[in-house]
C-alpha cells in the first residue's frame, strides 16, 4: 500500500479553493491531501493531465430493496453488459441497474468516489447498508424516506411539533441515514388506501390526517434545519412528470422561506401545459427562481436517450408510466412508510415528451447562473445510467456537439424550449463544480470535493482531451483515500469505502412514544428494527451544521 503519492505538472481544478487550472503538485499522505512531501518522494508526472477532486454524486439509486428488485427484474438488461472480475476485483453485471460490485467499480472508472443513494425506506435501511458494503471503492450514504411516514404525519396532524423533531432525529439515528427524503409527500395514502389514486395539489388535505403536502414539506424543512443535518431535506416534489407541474415546484420552493432545501431531479418538475395534455418547458421560470434564492440547491435529473429503469418511491407515477406499454411492472409497498414503483423504460429521440425532457434538463444547466447550486445527475437510473455522465458533460461543454445532437431529436419538442438559443459552454472549472465541489458543499462534506490540505485524497486525473466525453469516460488515475485504485486506466487495487451518516441529537424519550405505534402497526419487533451499530463497519459521522 502506497502511503505517499505525488503528482507533478498536472493542471488542477479545485474550485472550492479557487484553483482554476493552475499547474501545481498534489501530495498525498495517509489518505489525505498534504501541503508537501519530502523531496525524495517519487513523483508521477501528470503533464497534459487534468486533476480534480473525486466526483460526488448527490442523487443516485444504487442500493437497497427497490434497487435489488429492479436488478432481479431485468436479466435481459444485464446479459449484454457483463462486468468481468480480475484477480483482485469481483465480477458483476451491468446494464441500467448494475450489481453492487459493478456499480462501485464503474463509478470509479468515471472518477467518482462518493455517491449518495437517494431513497431508502427505514425498514429497508439494513438491506441498503448490506448492499453498500458490497459496493466497492466509493464512500456512500443514503437519504431516508420520511415524507409519507404515517407516524410522523400523525404527529403533525396532532400539532406535536417537538415530538415530530425528536422522532425525525430518532429515525435518522436508528437507520444511520444522512438526511430526510420526501417523495411525493401525501401521495402514498391515496395510492395504497384509495384505489391507486394520488394527491395532485400541494395544498390538498388528506382525508385521513387532514394535512397537506405543504404542511409536511414545511415541517421537514424546519426540523432538518433545526436538527442540523448536513444536508437539507431532499425533496422529490408532488406531480412529478405531469404537465403544468412547475407551479407545484415553485410553491414547494416557496415553502422553504429562506431555509435550506434541496430539490431532486428538478428537470422532471419543470413542465408547463395543462395536466393530461402535452407539456412545454418552464425551465426559464424554474431557473429564475433558483437563481434568485440562494437557500435552494438542486440536481438536474437529466434525461439521456436509451435504456433506463424507472425506480421511485412515487408509486402512482410508476403506475402511470406502466400504462403506456403495459410491460413488466413492480409495485412494492413498505408498511407505514412508503410506496415504490419500478419498470424498465426507454427514452427515444423521436418521442416528443422524451426529447422535451432532454432539452429541459440542458436548459436548466445552461440557464442556471450559480453552478454551486445546480448539480449534475441523471437521477440514475431514472433519467439514464450514471455511465452517461461523460456524454452529458460533453453536451454542456461543447456547443457544436450539442447543436448536432439537438438536430437528431424531435423538433416539435425543441420548438417548445429555448435550447437552440443557449450558447453557453461549461468550463472545466464549472464541470468540477457541478460534479464534485458543489455536491460536496451541499452535503457539507468538508473533506470532499476539494484538494486543499487535509482533504480526503479522493482524486481523479484525466488525460486532457478535446473530446470531453472521451476524457471523462476514462480517467488515467483514480485515487481513493490515498490508494491508487486505477492506474493507467486499469484497476490496480480493490478498495471498500465507508458509510457516511448523520447522528443528530434527539430526546431518547421519543422512542417510548413511537413504540406503541410500532407494536400496533408494524410487523417486526421494535428491537429488531433499524441498523445496529455493528452493521456499520467503516463509517463516518458527518457533524451537525448550524443553520
Amino acid at each position, binding site marked *: 500500500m502506497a502511503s505517499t503519492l505525488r503528482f507533478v505538472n498536472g493542471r488542477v481544478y479545485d474550485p472550492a479553493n479557487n484553483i482554476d487550472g493552475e499547474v501545481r503538485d498534489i501530495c498525498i499522505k495517509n489518505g489525505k491531501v498534504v501541503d508537501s512531501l519530502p523531496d525524495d518522494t517519487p513523483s508521477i508526472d501528470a503533464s497534459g493531465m487534468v486533476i480534480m477532486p473525486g466526483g460526488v454524486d448527490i442523487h443516485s439509486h444504487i442500493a437497497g430493496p427497490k434497487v435489488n428488485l429492479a436488478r432481479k427484474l431485468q436479466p435481459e438488461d*444485464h446479459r449484454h453488459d457483463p462486468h468481468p472480475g480480475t484477480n*483482485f476485483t469481483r465480477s458483476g453485471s451491468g446494464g441500467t441497474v448494475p*450489481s453492487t460490485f459493478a456499480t462501485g467499480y464503474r463509478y470509479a472508472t468515471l472518477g467518482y468516489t462518493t455517491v449518495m443513494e437517494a431513497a431508502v425506506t427505514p425498514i429497508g435501511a439494513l*438491506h441498503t447498508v448490506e*448492499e453498500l458494503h458490497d459496493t466497492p471503492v466509493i464512500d456512500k450514504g443514503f437519504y431516508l424516506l420520511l415524507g409519507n411516514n404515517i407516524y410522523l404525519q400523525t404527529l403533525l396532524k396532532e400539532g406535536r411539533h417537538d415530538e415530530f423533531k425528536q422522532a425525525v432525529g430518532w429515525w435518522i439515528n436508528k437507520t444511520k441515514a444522512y438526511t430526510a427524503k420526501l417523495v411525493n409527500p401525501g401521495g402514498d395514502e391515496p395510492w395504497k*388506501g384509495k384505489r391507486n389514486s394520488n394527491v395532485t395539489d400541494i395544498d390538498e388535505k388528506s382525508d385521513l390526517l387532514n394535512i397537506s403536502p405543504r404542511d409536511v414539506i414545511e415541517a421537514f424543512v424546519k426540523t432538518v434545519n433545526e436538527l442540523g443535518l448536513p444536508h437539507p431535506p431532499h425533496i422529490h416534489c408532488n406531480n412529478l412528470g405531469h404537465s403544468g407541474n412547475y407551479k407545484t415546484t415553485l410553491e414547494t420552493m416557496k415553502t422553504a422561506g429562506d431555509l435550506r432545501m434541496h430539490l431532486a431531479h428538478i428537470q422532471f418538475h419543470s413542465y408547463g401545459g395543462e395536466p393530461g395534455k402535452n407539456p412545454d418547458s418552464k425551465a426559464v421560470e424554474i431557473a429564475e427562481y433558483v437563481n434568485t434564492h440562494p437557500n435552494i440547491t438542486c440536481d438536474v435529473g437529466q434525461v439521456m436517450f436509451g435504456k433506463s429503469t424507472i425506480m421511485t418511491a412515487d408509486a402512482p407515477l410508476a403506475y402511470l408510466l406502466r400504462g403506456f406499454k403495459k410491460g*413488466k411492472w413492480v409495485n412494492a409497498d413498505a408498511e407505514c412508510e412508503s410506496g415504490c414503483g419500478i419498470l424498465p423504460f426507454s427514452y427515444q429521440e423521436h418521442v416528443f415528451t422524451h426529447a422535451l425532457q432532454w432539452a429541459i434538463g440542458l436548459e436548466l444547466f445552461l440557464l442556471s447562473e450559480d453552478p454551486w447550486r445546480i448539480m449534475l445527475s441523471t437521477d440514475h437510473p431514472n433519467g439514464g445510467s450514471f455511465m452517461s455522465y461523460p456524454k452529458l458533460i460533453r453536451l454542456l461543454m461543447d456547443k457544436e456537439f450539442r447543436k448536432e445532437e439537438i438536430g437528431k431529436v424531435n423538433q416539435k419538442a425543441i420548438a417548445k424550449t429555448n435550447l437552440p438559443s443557449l450558447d453557453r459552454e461549461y468550463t472545466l472549472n464549472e464541470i468540477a463544480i457541478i460534479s464534485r465541489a458543489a455536491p460536496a458543499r451541499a452535503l457539507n462534506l468538508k473533506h470532499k470535493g476539494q484538494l486543499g490540505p487535509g482533504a480526503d485524497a479522493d482524486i481523479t486525473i484525466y488525460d486532457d482531451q478535446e473530446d470531453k466525453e472521451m476524457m471523462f469516460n476514462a480517467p488515467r488515475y483514480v485515487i481513493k483515500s490515498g490508494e491508487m485504485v486505477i492506474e493507467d486506466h486499469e484497476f490496480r*487495487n480493490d478498495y471498500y469505502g465507508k458509510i457516511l451518516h448523520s447522528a443528530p441529537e434527539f430526546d431518547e424519550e421519543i422512542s417510548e412514544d413511537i413504540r406503541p405505534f410500532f407494536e400496533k402497526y408494524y410487523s417486526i419487533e421494535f428491537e429488531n428494527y433499524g441498523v445496529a451499530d455493528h452493521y456499520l463497519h467503516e463509517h463516518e459521522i458527518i457533524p451537525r451544521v448550524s443553520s
Partner: protein
Amino acid sequence: MAENTRIVKNATCTFCGCVCDDMELTVDLDKKVITKAKNACVLGRAWFAEHQIDDRPVAMIDGKEAPLEEAIEEAAQVLVNAKFPITYGLSDTTCEAQKQAVAISDIIRGTIDTTTSVCHGPSGLAFQDIGESTSTLGEVKNRADLVIYWGGNPAESHPRHFRYSVTPKGMFIPNGKKDRTVVMIDVRKTPSAPVADILIQVKPGKDFELLWALRALVKGRKVDPQIQVMTGVPLETMTDLVERMKNCRFGVLFFGMGLTMTRGRHFNSGALLALATDLNEFTHFVAKPVRGHGNVTGADNVVSWQTGYPFGVNFSRGFPRFNPGEFTTVDTLTRGDADAALIIASDPASNFPKAAIEHLKKIPVISLDTKETSTSKLSHVAFATSTYGINTAGTVYRMDDVPIPLRPAFESPYPGDEEILFAIKKRVHELILSKCGATGATGEARVASKLML
C-alpha cells in the same frame, strides 16, 4: 428452572419464511439447550428444541474424522481443480455466509444456485416476465380486506403466517378477521381450510386455466361456462370472486408451491402475478409468494445484488451468467455437467430427482450442515456447523424482503457456515492466484484484508 439460565427476547425463528422475530427463548446454558420458546409455533418449537449440540466431528474426509485445517485445504483443492464446480443450498444460513459462498463461486469460476430453484424459482422467472405488485406483510396486516391463498397450506408449512394476514387487527382493519374475507384455493381441503370464508377446490393441474379465466373476467371478456368441466369451478363462483377482488380496498394473493411445482411452473406463478397486476386497474392489489425455508429470501437478495441475478448463476467465463434450466442445480446434476459440488445447509441427496442424486454420488461433494444428512453422508469433505439463529448471529430476510438480525441463544463448539466458507474462500483465492501466476503486493495483500466481503 435450571441454575444457569438465560432469557433471549425478540429472538428470531429461522425455520420457515415467516421468520417470526418475537420469540422469547429460555436457554439452559449448562445443558446447551433451549427449554422453552414462547410464541413459537409447532415447527418453531421443534426447531428450537431439537437443535442441541450433536456429538460429531467438526470435519470428516471420506467419512473419517479430520482436522479442520486439513478439511479446508482438501475442500479448496477440490474446488480449484474442478472445471464445473457447483455451489448449492444456502437457504438455511445467514446472509453473511451467503456472501462468502457467492465470492467462492466467483473466484473459482463455478456455478451458484440456491434452494430457490426448487422452491419459488419459477415465481422468480415469472417475476422477470411480469413484475409483481407486492407489499411487506405489515401492510397486509394494516389494510388487506380480501386475503386469498392459492396452492399453499400455510397452517402446516407456515403456521404463523395468519398472524400477518388473517387474524391481526390493523390500521384500517380494526376488527381483525371480521373485517377480512379469506379465500382458499387448492386442489385438496388442507388443514388450512378452516380459516377460509370461501373455499374453492380446483382440479389438480388446472390452476393456470382457472387463473386465466379469472384474468379474462377481470378484463370483462366472456368465458364459456364449460370452464367448470375443465377446472371443477363453476363460472358463478369465478364471477363472484372477481367481483370481490375488484371491489375490495386492498387485496392480496398469497401463493405456494401448488403453483410453482406443478405442470406450468413459472407460467402458473406468472398468471397469478398478472392477475394481481390486472386488478390494480380497479383497486390496490398485491401478490406474494409464501416463501419457504428460513433465509431463502436472503439468498435471493444476496445473489441478486452481488451478481445481478437471483439464482442459477454461472461464472465459467469470469462474469455472471443466468440461465435457469442450464445453471440450476437439478439440471447441472441431471445432465452430469458438475464435476464437484459445495453444498451448504441443504440436503439435495434426500429430495432431488433420482438422476440428480445418482450424479451427486459420482463427484466429490463438500457439505456444510448442522445435522448428519443423506448429503453429508455421501460427502468427500463434510463440515459440521453451528445453527444460525440459535448459535450464530447474522442477518436473515423474511419472505417479504424485510431483513431481520438474529439473536443467538447459546454458543456452539462448532464453527458457523460463514467462518468455514471464509476460510475456504481465502484458500481458493490463494490457490487461484498461484495457479495463474499472479504475484505482486496488490493482489495478495488484498486477499486477507479486503476480500472480506
